[in-house]
């Protein structure tokens, strides 16, 4: 589904990302872990064509992302709060995203209904603009918005950060369910090794912009990661 070729990103003389080759097959749930500054968000931003690669390119379902915009209809993402429109209510925001992805109100409503547990009565019908919601609730809205319109590729940057324990557990279930579908490729980055080993079939460790580990998740994976980051 996603192929990375000789991708590098440099700011001045500093290389922040250098990936020679990375293949993510369709339907895989892909986890990205690494310390701050390892290049996780840079990789996701490159995938979404928000920054320009210094060399190389990323291909998303046969489309080179920095050449054509045709990847947009089947790709969706939630990177940070800059993906939210502060002066809309959550409902208005969902409908707006729905409009962009060719879903009418009824479609969006029926999708939202399946997330009732996840929202925990804190998102819908609150008479609050997104900018007035807490960080955690903003994140919930942003994550759910990225599921609108049956995307084939879902990119979530640090989805577990800022969420309360109950919501973290529910989110894990949601991502697992999504990943179980054969046609949806989920890319998740996280600092939380336990969460990411739980929801991802494959985990790639980035360190200083380079891939240092590429693991198919098994029982030993968590140990392996803990030794890596601990040592």
């Amino acid at each position, binding site marked *: 589904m996603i192929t990375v070729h000789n991708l590098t990103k440099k700011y001045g003389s500093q290389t922040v990302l250098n990936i020679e080759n990375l293949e993510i097959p369709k339907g895989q749930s892909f986890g990205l872990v690494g310390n701050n500054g390892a290049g996780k968000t840079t990789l996701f931003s490159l995938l979404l064509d928000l920054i320009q690669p210094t060399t190389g390119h990323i291909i998303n379902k046969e489309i080179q992302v920095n050449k054509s915009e045709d990847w947009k209809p089947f790709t969706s993402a939630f990177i940070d709060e800059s993906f939210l429109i*502060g*002066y809309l209510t959550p409902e208005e925001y969902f409908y707006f995203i729905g409009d962009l992805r060719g879903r009418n109100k009824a479609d969006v409503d029926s999708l939202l209904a399946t997330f009732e547990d996840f929202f925990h009565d804190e998102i819908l019908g609150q008479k609050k603009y997104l900018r007035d919601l807490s960080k955690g609730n903003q994140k919930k809205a942003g994550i759910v918005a990225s599921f609108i319109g049956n995307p084939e590729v879902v990119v979530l940057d640090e989805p577990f950060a800022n969420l309360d324990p109950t919501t973290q557990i529910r989110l894990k279930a949601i991502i697992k369910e999504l990943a179980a579908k054969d046609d949806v490729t989920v890319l998740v980055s996280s600092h939380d090794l336990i969460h990411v080993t739980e929801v991802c079939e494959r985990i790639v460790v980035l360190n200083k912009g380079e891939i240092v580990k590429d693991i198919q998740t098994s029982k030993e994976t968590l140990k392996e990661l803990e030794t890596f980051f601990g040592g």
Partner: protein
Amino acid sequence: MFKHFIKLQWKSFFRSSSFGKSVALKIIMAFFGLYMLATLIMTGAGLYFILRKIFPDQSPMWTLSQYFVYWVLIELFLRYFMQKLPVMDIKPLLTTPIKKSAITHFILGKSALSFYNLLGIFFFVPFAVVLLIHDYPTLNVLLWLIGIFAAVLCINYVNFIINKSDKALIAIGTLLVGLYALDYFGIFEVKAFFGPIFHALYAYPIAVLAPITLALLTYYINFKFLRNKIFLDASLKSKTKEATASDLAWTKRFGDMGPFLQLDLKLIWRNKRTKAQVFISLLFVFYGLIFYTQDIYSTWYPMFAFLGIFMTGIFLSNFGQFIPAWDSTYYSMMMAQNIPLRKYLESKATLISVSVVAMFLLTIPYVYFGWEALAINFGSAIYNLGVNIPVILYFGSFNKKRIELDKSPLGNMQGTSATQFLIMLPVLVVPIIIFSIFNYLISLEVAVFVLSIMGIIGFAFKNYFLNRITEQYRKKKYGMIAGFKEKDN
């Protein structure tokens, strides 16, 4: 303790975002500030002579005293909108081992040095100097000046007390209008009543104690009030308004453009700065009154052309010059989403077009000053629609400065860069030059015709222009995303 506070203040001033602005902008702002100060000083110094001329048989001090009550009320009224106690600044200090009373003193004391208080000083000091030159008794004048400073501080602190309620504002407004009406219709001599009271400040030096006592009292009330409210959940909490969801279903009629139009309308209506733009634009309809009513301009048509372009295009330039920076806080989402950039721009163009037409309709009454005014405004509106809209959208692609929508609109220069000044040239100057050339070489009718034709041609090529502009936005995309992410520029 206060040494620390002063150090903090110093740093917050020199490290503030306005200091990090580009050199060109700094110079322009400095010039503007100097100009304002110079005007104040000149008016203050000239006031003596002006009053002498208008009321030759009265002492200027006496005349001035009569108007003091209005000054106090007007200043209170205006400050309600302009000046707020910066309580949020003290949040980080709460957990430090500083006494809360010291924090309160700091924030109240700091407000005494506010820009609005300086305005009064820059006005009254030159006036007092002129009085001294004219051999007014030194002691009286100096104590009067001190009394004025105390009065300014009173206004300053009273403003913080009333700032919490709209009712107080309405009361002041009613009082202001009411007093003026009483005076105007001769029911009650307001000026004659309050004149001696304020004049006493000058006539009896001991009276200076009154404003000083009042200033201390208002300070004390503020202190009492604030000291007990320095808690996160009391005065330091930023207010959140209840959201009113609206679906603006009629925008659906605009097809693909509908969602964006809906978003833009919400953008304008739900954010302070954009909302202020709308009101300011509407107010500028009256701008023409300043010029149309004066004989020197009545046949000087280039001035009419300026008015036409300016009045029908005020929203175009005010709102348009910051496209797409209005969407800067969520621009990366817009770029990653499944968004046809072209529709996005088309929606902005439609919105501005509506504003141009509306502003033209509002300026129709100026036909009272001659058919020329109407004809020129019409030509200008067409020109704005056809030419200036694509121009301003094109220049928008050079915008790289972030705008935080919920920041106060007053004196907010966020998002401003050299681009904004460059835009003015083609948008305002070019049409006036074109108009003037045809006006003087051939005739007024031809000049209006040329502006209209240019507008119509621009309109005919609208699709072509929009395609080119979309291309331009696409090319500049990465720079915009990076620029909009930088906070505090």
